[in-house]
């Protein structure tokens, strides 16, 4: 027994050098900060005209003012609600259809060809048609977001399921797992990395669709805030809107990355417990 049961000493202690990692992170903040400083000085010294591009500090001040009187929060909430509803509808549809097409041959035959065809249409170009179909109101914006979110998530769900190693499914079968257990223990976790990728792309597409959607006939939302400010030549508010959109994109990406790191700990082995 001793020969094989000897405790293993070949555990790879593959801890990455933390110091080097931190330094790289830190270095990566230099150039953005430098750009901000340059922008600020250029605006202050009049190299950039104030009405073309206000200084970052001005934009922040405007942001603070609008945040304090509640305007920013209200519009932000409206935008977020649209994004969330659209994402929920488009995402759910993508997950369901992508799973059916990925798991069932009949589903694949029925669902995948039309989706592949529809993919060729740039969904943002559908705005005129959408206006005719569902009007210029809230449903148009939500439909646009849902459409934007649908395709990346559908394709990644489909591909994630299709790319699962058939040999693992087979091994699970020899362990006596039935179809549902195989889906739960093999297919779902196996497709998860791909699902996360799809979700990231879907959220990106959702923001983009929201920006476009909110520029036509809106009474609220970040897009409305920007369009209104343009009419009054409030460049600082327009730039603030851009900042908010960018911040939302960054934030959602960050949250998703954190979630991904937690869920996919098995990919990195020792580093997570």
């Amino acid at each position, binding site marked *: *027994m001793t020969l*094989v049961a000897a405790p*293993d000493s070949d555990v790879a202690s593959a801890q990455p050098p933390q110091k080097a990692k931190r330094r790289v992170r830190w270095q990566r903040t230099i150039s953005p900060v430098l750009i901000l400083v340059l922008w600020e000085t250029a605006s202050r010294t009049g190299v950039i005209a104030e009405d073309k591009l206000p200084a970052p500090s001005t934009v922040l001040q405007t942001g603070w003012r609008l945040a304090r009187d509640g305007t920013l929060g209200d519009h932000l909430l409206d935008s977020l609600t649209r994004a969330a509803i659209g994402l929920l509808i488009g995402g759910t549809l993508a997950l369901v259809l992508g799973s059916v097409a990925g798991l069932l041959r009949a589903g694949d035959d029925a669902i995948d060809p039309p989706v592949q065809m529809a993919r060729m249409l740039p969904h943002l170009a559908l705005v005129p048609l959408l206006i005719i179909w569902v009007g210029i109101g809230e449903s148009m914006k939500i439909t646009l977001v849902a459409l934007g979110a649908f395709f990346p998530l559908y394709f990644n769900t489909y591909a994630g399921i299709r790319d699962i190693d058939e040999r693992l499914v087979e091994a*699970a*079968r*020899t362990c006596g797992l039935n179809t549902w*257990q195989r889906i739960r223990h093999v297919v779902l976790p196996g497709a998860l990395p791909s699902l996360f990728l799809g979700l990231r792309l879907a959220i990106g597409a959702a923001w983009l669709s929201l920006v476009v959607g909110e520029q036509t006939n809106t009474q609220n939302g970040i897009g409305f805030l920007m369009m209104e400010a343009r009419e009054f030549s409030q460049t600082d508010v327009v730039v603030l809107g851009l900042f908010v959109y960018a911040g939302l994109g960054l934030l959602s990406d960050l949250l998703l990355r954190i979630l991904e790191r937690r869920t996919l*700990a098995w990919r990195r082995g*020792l580093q997570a417990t």
Partner: protein
Amino acid sequence: MAPRTASDLVVRARGVRRAFGPVTVLDGADLDIARGEVVALLGGSGSGKSTLLRILAGLDPAASGDFTVPAQHAVVFQEHRLLPWKRVIDNVGLGVDDRTRCTDALAEVGLADRARAWPIELSGGQAQRVAFARALAREPSVLLLDEPFGALDALTRLRMQQLFGRLRARHGFAALLVTHDVEEALLLADRALVLDRGVIAADLPVELEHPRAPDAPGFGVLRRRLLDLLGVPSAA
């Protein structure tokens, strides 16, 4: 060899046929495995060994023929086939409710301390031992093994073969061991079969004393006979 009665058999296959398109790989293969018996299945590359094993494991619905394999069977493949997203202990416990059986199985292959590790953290030999533990935890009456040591380095393979011998002595499971390694077959099996042209072309009892070693008397003779059956000419 003592005459075997039907009730002694754990695996019984008659007239197993399988064709891939126009190519008939198995053309009426017959196979019996008695309770607790280890049978080695040899044959040239592409002769259909894996195909036969997959059929017995219930993984090939397109095959025809009569075969009975107990529900209490387990399979070990050439690659470990552990689910990378499950910790070692959860891989062993796949489809097994009794947790202590899983920890026991893991301890038996000497990996009790790696229960919480991810498969990615294991060496090739360790991963294959976990695959064995996963099979053991099912308390199989027959193990189906498709070149289970084939992907391992020579030293690890020797250790794994010894481990297999010990496990078998303790649990008394029957096994079908697909291998291309004549020595492995002679070290581990009670009987060696040669698959050729879709049928079991030879059935060679291996009546050697345990523990066996390649330099034991009688080993060389059997080795030569098996190689002859496999169509490998003796060195000039």
